[in-house]
C-alpha cells in the first residue's frame, strides 16, 4: 500500500489484498458480500472513513476498525448501506397487502386483534410509512384491528432519519398531491415533514437480518417486507436471513421480497403464493415453530 498526494487532497491507495481482507471482515460482521468487482464503491467509502477518523493509512484504519474504537464499525456499516428509496415503491405489493394478504390474515381472527407488520430493512423510513399510508387510504378495516408496524435497519443513521420523518421531493415523487397535502407539512429547503401521528405509528429499531441473536427479539409478525437487501448477500447469508425471517413470522404469515429476488432460490421453507398483484411467500400454517 502507498499513500499519494492527490492535488492537495490526501487520498489513500488500498491494495487488492487489503480490499480482500476488508471484504472478509465486513462479511463476517454484517453478511454484506462485496468483492473486487465493487472496487470503486468500496474505495469511495473506505477513503471517506479513513479521512473521517484521521487515520494515516489503510492499515491504521483497519486496526482501529477491528478494535471498534469509537464505534467505528457502526459508522462503517452506515456508510456501506444503500439508503436510496422512495414512498410507494413497488406499490403492487402494497395493493396485494390490502387486496389479498390482510383479508387472509384476519379471516381467522376476532375484530380488535393485533396485526404485526415488519419493514426490514426500513432504511430512512419510506417503506414503513408507505405501509401505514396505504392502509389508511386503502383498507376499510384499518380501525377494526390493532395494527403494529415496526421498521428495522442495521444503519443507525438511517433509523434516526426515519424517526425524524423529513423528506425531499424525490422521495415523494410517487405520492399524489392529495396525499402529500394530507400527511406532509412543507418545511425549509423544499423538504417535507411527515405527519406526527404517522411518525408515532411506527416503531423504529436496529436489527441485523442475518444475526440470529438480533432477530430472536422479533416474533409473531403477520407480514414482513424484506425488499432489495438479500441481493447484497451471498448464498450462505441469504439462507441465514431466510431462516431468521421464517422464525419471526407467525404460521400462515407472509413475506414480500424485492422484484428481482426469489425465495424459492434461497430456501425451501416457504410456500409460493401467486396473487393478481404480486408473488409472495408464506410460512406454512401447519408449522407452529
Amino acid at each position, binding site marked *: 500500500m502507498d499513500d499519494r498526494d492527490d492535488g492537495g487532497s490526501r487520498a489513500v491507495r488500498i491494495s487488492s489484498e487489503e480490499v480482500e481482507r476488508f471484504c472478509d471482515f465486513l462479511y463476517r460482521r454484517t453478511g454484506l458480500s462485496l468483492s473486487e468487482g465493487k472496487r470503486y464503491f468500496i474505495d469511495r467509502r473506505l477513503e471517506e472513513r479513513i479521512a473521517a477518523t484521521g487515520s494515516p493509512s489503510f492499515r491504521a484504519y483497519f486496526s482501529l476498525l477491528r478494535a471498534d474504537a469509537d464505534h467505528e464499525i457502526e459508522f462503517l456499516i452506515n456508510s456501506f448501506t444503500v439508503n436510496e428509496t422512495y414512498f410507494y415503491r413497488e406499490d403492487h405489493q402494497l395493493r396485494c397487502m390490502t387486496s389479498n394478504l390482510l383479508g387472509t390474515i384476519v379471516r381467522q381472527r376476532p*375484530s380488535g386483534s393485533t396485526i404485526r407488520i415488519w419493514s426490514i430493512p426500513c432504511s430512512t423510513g419510506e417503506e414503513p410509512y408507505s405501509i*401505514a399510508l396505504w392502509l389508511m387510504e386503502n383498507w376499510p378495516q384499518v*380501525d377494526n384491528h390493532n395494527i403494529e408496524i415496526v421498521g428495522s435497519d442495521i444503519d443507525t443513521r438511517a433509523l434516526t432519519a426515519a424517526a425524524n420523518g423529513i423528506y425531499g421531493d424525490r422521495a415523494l415523487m410517487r405520492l399524489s398531491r392529495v396525499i402529500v397535502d394530507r400527511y406532509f407539512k412543507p418545511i425549509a429547503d423544499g423538504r417535507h415533514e411527515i405527519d406526527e401521528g*404517522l411518525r408515532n405509528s411506527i416503531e423504529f429499531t436496529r436489527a441485523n437480518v442475518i444475526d440470529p441473536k438480533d432477530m430472536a427479539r422479533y416474533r409473531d409478525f403477520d407480514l414482513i417486507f424484506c425488499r432489495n437487501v438479500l441481493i447484497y448477500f451471498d448464498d450462505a447469508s441469504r439462507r441465514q436471513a431466510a431462516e431468521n425471517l421464517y422464525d419471526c413470522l407467525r404460521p400462515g404469515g407472509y413475506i414480500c421480497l424485492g422484484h428481482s429476488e426469489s425465495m424459492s432460490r434461497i430456501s425451501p421453507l416457504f410456500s409460493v403464493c401467486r396473487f393478481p398483484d404480486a408473488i409472495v411467500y408464506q410460512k406454512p400454517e401447519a408449522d407452529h415453530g
Partner: protein
Amino acid sequence: MVEVDAAAKARILVVDDSSLVRLYYRSTLERAGFEVEQSINGIEAMERVLSQPIDLVIVDINMPRMDGLTFLRALRCGPSDISSLPALVVSTESEMRDIAEARASGANFYLVKPVAEAELVRHVCVLTGVSL
C-alpha cells in the same frame, strides 16, 4: 370525502390506544373541518376534558390502564361542565350486551368498527349539532 362548514368547527377528542386508528379518525375528521385532540386511554382522556373545552368524545372500549366504559362512568360523575359531554363509542365489540353496557355507562351512540369515513363524519355531525 365529506366536508362540513369549516366555520362551525367543533373540537373532537379521539380516545383510542391504536395510533393508526387515532390517525385514521383524526385525518377523516380534520378533512371534514373538525378540530381533533387525541388520548391513548381513559386516564389521559379525563385529563384532557378537564383541561380544555371539548364538544364530543369518540371512545374505544378496550384500552390499557383505563378502558372506555370506565372513562365514561367517571365522565358522567364528573364536574357539571363535562358530565353532559356527548360521547360516541366506537368499538370492535358488537354484542347487544356490549352496546347495552356502553349505554348504561353513558354512551350517547355506539358504532361497531370498522367505521367508514362518511359514517363517522355523519354521526359526529349529528352529535355535535354541526350541519352537513
